[in-house]
């Protein structure tokens, strides 16, 4: 547990498509019932990071050309939950 994430429940990862990072696209964090929680544009390395609350979340990725992916994740304080997504 790193000091920087001691009080945060971090969910982060990278999105790749055909081996290359997806740099134009969005990662959405959704709660129960598909409830929107947060969204970030993907970084230059295809990366995203959320500061959530403990519990289960759905990660959804959107990219041009209708590309989509979804993953279920579990977050907790002082933990960095890593989710790499191939789309």
């Amino acid at each position: 547990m790193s000091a920087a994430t001691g009080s945060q429940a971090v969910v982060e990862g990278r999105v790749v498509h055909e081996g290359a990072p997806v740099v134009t696209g969005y990662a959405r964090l959704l709660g129960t019932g598909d409830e929107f929680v947060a969204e970030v544009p993907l970084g230059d390395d295809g990366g995203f990071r959320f500061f959530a609350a403990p519990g289960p979340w759905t990660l959804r990725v959107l990219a041009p050309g209708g590309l989509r992916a979804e993953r279920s994740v579990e977050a907790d304080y002082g933990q960095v939950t890593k989710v790499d997504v191939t789309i």
Partner: protein
Amino acid sequence: MSRSDVLVDADWAEAHIGDPGVVIVEVDEDTSAYDKGHIPTAIKLDWKKDLQDPVRRDFVDKTGFEALLSERGISNDDTVLLYGGNNNWFAAYAYWYFRLYGHDKVLLLDGGRKKWELDSRELSTDVPDRPKTDYTASEQDASLRALRDEVIAAIGKRNLVDVRSPDEFAGRLLAPAHLPQEQAQRGGHIPTARNVPWSKAANEDGTFRSDDELRTLYASEAGLDFSKDTIAYCRIGERSAHTWFVLHELLEQPNVKNYDGSWTEYGSLVGVPIELGDGR
């Protein structure tokens, strides 16, 4: 006034690139997005550096706004088309801000930056050099903006709409989940406020839902009494500007104000009442 008087789609924007009477303006939270690529001919407004006073927590004043728009080459006769990231949070904030200073020829691009990108439309890195203008602003229109004391006096009397996520409303989070948790001293919401997250007004691609869907959302599902005046708030007033746009511009409710001090102000005030939990 119809929806198309305030909101246009990407085809309209594309058709008006290079139109001398239209200025396309990108407004972001992360202003590096513009640098990486923007709608051709668009200029950039930094919502923090350009629109906020550098010392006091307030907008730039009328003179400052006039200087800003003159320097950027926007004239009083121009139609300003605003768009940006975060599902148009900051573009909606800028829309409200322009209306506050009396610039009524202002439009929002439905879907903002996200839909433009997901549709693979053209992005440019060229930064236009617009000739300076001599812009004149009006005094701030107080009928659009709520300040702290008015908000406290509105508890139990007017509609208070908290547009943050349910976890922020309940006090489980202090900020949206893409930012580190910081800034207000306390979590929770203003007593009597209804939680209608801004995201319920938008589709996944960032466009606004239809007028019928929006009316159902606010009047039927959230139970807002539209015979009363409404104040919308969030954390710093930009998500609530998105909802202000929905209520005041799309649904044409006459008395809707944005409380831009929002939770970063209210949640740190000494002595004001706070409610926790999911409400309803």
